[in-house]
């Protein structure tokens, strides 16, 4: 790595490498650094699992929306204005008493950005990607989730351009709750399948 030069010695070598690349591309007029700021702002502040939580909460209270989400998740989710990059082709999968769904991308890091934001590090890392398909129960244990032995597990490996959103089961004791209040129970992990919706406090 001959370009790990030392004039950025306040930075670690990889930070210097990224900075050099940004500098080169900016000097050549190939990228606009201000565009990077907007991208970062979008995914650090605006787009995140709160989007997906709103989708799930709406599906819990609105049977018609839930049916639409099952049939055409891309359109149903777009109706809440969550669209765009890495959410172009959405599929919602619903947990039931019988079956628990778990989503992985064994080949890279495919993830539904439009509803969950950027993926966590563990989702992109080899331990999860290697084991979710062969030992999902072991993986779930590492998230503190023990499923009943009889529960069927369906693992969805996102090998194409469909992006999966798990719709967890609605917790008991939430009858009459508003969508806003219900959305607070829907965690990112519940929508990947590595968790369940939170129980009401």
């Amino acid at each position, binding site marked *: 790595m001959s370009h790990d030069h030392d004039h950025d010695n306040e930075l670690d070598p990889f930070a210097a490498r990224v900075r050099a690349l940004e500098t080169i*591309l900016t000097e050549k007029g190939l*990228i606009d650094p201000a565009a990077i700021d907007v*991208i*970062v702002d979008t995914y650090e502040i605006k787009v995140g699992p709160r989007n997906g939580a709103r989708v799930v909460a709406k599906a819990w209270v609105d049977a018609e929306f839930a049916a639409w989400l099952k049939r055409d998740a891309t359109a149903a989710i777009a109706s809440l204005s969550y669209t765009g990059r890495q959410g172009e082709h959405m599929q919602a999968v619903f947990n039931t008493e019988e079956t628990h769904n778990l989503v992985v991308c064994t080949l890279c890091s495919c993830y539904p950005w439009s509803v969950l934001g*950027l993926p966590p590090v563990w989702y992109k890392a*080899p331990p999860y990607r290697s084991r979710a*398909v062969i030992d999902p129960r072991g993986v779930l244990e*590492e998230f503190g989730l023990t499923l009943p032995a009889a529960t069927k597990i369906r693992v969805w490996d996102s090998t194409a351009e469909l992006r999966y959103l798990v719709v967890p089961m609605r917790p008991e004791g939430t009858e009459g709750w508003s969508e806003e209040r219900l959305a607070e129970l829907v965690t990112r992990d519940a929508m990947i399948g590595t968790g369940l919706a939170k129980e009401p406090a």
Partner: protein
Amino acid sequence: MNGPHDLGGQMGFGPVAPERDEPYFHAAWERRALGVTLTAGAMGAWNIDESRHARESLHPADYYASSYYQIWIKALEVLLKRHGFVSERDLEAGKAADPAATPKRVLKAENVPAALAKGGPCDRPVATPARFKAGDLVRTKTFHPTGHTRLPRYARGKQGTIDAVRDGFVFPDSNAHGRGENPQWVYTVVFDGAEIWGEGADPTLTVSIDAWESYLEPA
């Protein structure tokens, strides 16, 4: 290719390490890495399949020693050099030393929201009707292409059931190599855990992949 990225069923990587209240970025440079990757991609010189293939083509030792943003940047350097935007001299100097190819477009800050909202849909019309329907028994191909493919090794040569007929989608195996989009039908194919993992498989497990039509034969 049978690359380091094809991780399903591999062993020895240890437990998953979920991080409580994980931040989106673990260092300031990761923010720039995300942005540089997306803005460089927006030049339109390569497609998502070529960029995935560049990442999986890193040497396995390098791939496994790198964080995901590091993988992105290392692959991005390869793509930028391949397409004439950046030279080895530029990288050595840490600044622009050589002229660059002309990009199709440069993503300006004011156009970012629209570009992100539009995304990059990969569905395409397919001239022929879908060969399979939900419920059909199929077998995945056994093959070991040296180029890009999205049929993971653990799911090759396995019998499964068509769970759903999806849409026509760009075929990554050709698109990654500049050989055209050649759209095909994509199917969700579901396998019993035991069909894939055999002895000792979790009896409650089913695994599905999304498979392009040419990955499948009638079973």
